[in-house]
């Protein structure tokens, strides 16, 4: 869990307030969040809570592409986001959109994976090596010559993620990566995130509404509401907190049941990490 991770801070958000030009109120205000190296952090909150703006502040779209009133600081891997060009930030922070079709558009999967590296003028041999490694990690080596439109949605999401991985970012931001996928494919993407985190030590910040998918692998859950951070801790702890629903978070049924039973006085050991674990606990009683 996050407390036990010794990793130093990879992204530090301090006193961050940002207001878009025509907006009355800031989209995020007085945010303080430290993200540790090697963490998988879920970012959740109701629509319009400021999640997307926070992501943009971390990868540099704010303030480089979206100007506005900006206070406070965001430091990623030792550099100030506001003072660092996007081309350099793109090697530190990778972004995967909800819909991979927004991200893959070349004639072949291989070319798509290489696209970011080409833009950075990475030498040919190194590019080859990094593209091959990324495709191998994502299990799509066999699809290298396929056209993106021939791929299934799960394969498209893998191809898009391979393009992000090839850039060797330290931090990857995923914006609802599973919402368009069938449940089994969604689980596969979740285990890929876990694998990349474990094997390469990549830090992940994931925006997701379907928390039941990600809580098993996440170290931490940050809840935002009205532009502010309102809860932050290990997912099981945050989701068992009776206040969480008031912030518009869809609590997975297992946690909802567990917390209501405990609240009514039932003594249960530990917060269950799956419905099966809760079933065993209920049987034991």
């Amino acid at each position, binding site marked *: 869990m996050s407390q036990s991770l010794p990793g130093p801070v990879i992204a530090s958000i301090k006193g961050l307030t940002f207001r878009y030009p025509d907006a009355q109120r800031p989209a995020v205000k007085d945010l303080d969040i430290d993200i540790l190296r090697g963490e998988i952090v879920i970012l959740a*909150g*109701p*629509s*319009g809570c400021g999640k997307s703006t926070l992501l943009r502040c971390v990868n540099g779209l704010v303030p480089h592409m979206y100007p506005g009133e900006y206070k406070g600081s965001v430091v990623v891997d030792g550099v100030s986001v506001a003072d660092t060009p996007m081309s350099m930030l793109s090697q530190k922070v990778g972004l995967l959109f*909800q819909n991979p079709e927004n991200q893959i558009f070349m004639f072949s999967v291989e070319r798509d994976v290489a696209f970011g590296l080409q833009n950075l003028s990475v030498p040919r041999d190194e590019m080859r090596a990094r593209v091959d490694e990324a495709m191998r990690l994502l299990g799509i080596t066999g699809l290298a010559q396929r056209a993106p439109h021939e791929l*299934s*949605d*799960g394969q498209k999401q893998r191809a898009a993620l391979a393009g992000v991985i090839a850039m060797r970012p330290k931090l990857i931001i995923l914006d*609802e990566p599973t*919402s*368009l*996928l*069938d*449940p*089994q*494919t*969604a*689980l596969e993407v979740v285990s890929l995130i876990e694998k990349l985190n474990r094997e390469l030590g990549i830090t992940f910040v994931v925006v997701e*509404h*379907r928390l*039941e998918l990600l809580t098993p692998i996440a170290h931490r859950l940050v809840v935002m509401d009205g532009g502010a951070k309102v809860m932050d801790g290990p997912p099981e702890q945050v989701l068992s907190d009776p206040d969480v*629903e008031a912030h*518009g*978070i*869809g*609590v*997975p*049924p*297992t946690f*909802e*049941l567990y917390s*209501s*039973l405990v609240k*009514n006085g*039932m003594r249960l050991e530990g917060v269950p990490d*799956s*419905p*099966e674990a*809760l*079933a*065993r606990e*209920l*049987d034991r009683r």
Partner: protein
Amino acid sequence: MNMIEFRDVSYVHRTGTTALSGVSLSIDKGETVAIVGENGAGKTTLVRHINGLLRPTRGSVLVEGKDTRETTAAALSRKVGIAFQNPDHQLFSESVEGEVRFALRNFGFAEDLATRRVDWALNFFELDRYRKSSPLVLSGGEKKRLTLGCILAWDPDVVVLDEPTVGQDALQKEKLGHIFKMLQSTGKTIIIVSHDVEFLWPIQPRLLVMAGGRLVADGEMAEVMSDSATLERARVTRPQLLRLYSGLQRRPERPFLGVDDARTWAEGGR
């Protein structure tokens, strides 16, 4: 009464790919049906046959007993409203308000009635503040609500929703759940295409499972969900409350439909 009937329907794309093969099913008036299955299984192709956007290559589709090949798309769409998965495919007006009014005009609603329907839809889906804005400025979740509002405004007998929960937060999902209850109570026939098994479970729809263009299972949700081989084939997972139920050694006769159910049982109902 039989609302929708598929008789051995196959659909082959112009490219030669078979998207549906040999699908037969019938849906009664007032039924709530969910269609699940992996991406590309043919779910969207199937629902597009209901409002005549697609006509079968082989077999036939009947809506209220009439073959869709002998009905105009205009007449069918008055009866069957579809909210597509990707709202960008159906939003094109200059304003949010105009978007809702568009179909109402096409269907010949009187102006004052159309205005009342527009007001209702925008209020109900919390979109009133965007009334004069372009639909393009809406977020993904808001666009989905707008497409749903457009359809409910003209009050079709059959409401088809393709992935209604994508991009919706917990509050909006809860609201969608209430909308289903309301639609059910007014006798609408509801068809939901969705990957979101957690959302579907409390609704307890009749479940159709598709894989590779075929209908591979059709029955009560709890029953279909107990068949591991079918779920595996269709790449569908079980909802948490069913997993909890299946994991129990001592358990009640029927699975828990909601957290309240499970709590009542755990706290002494056994």
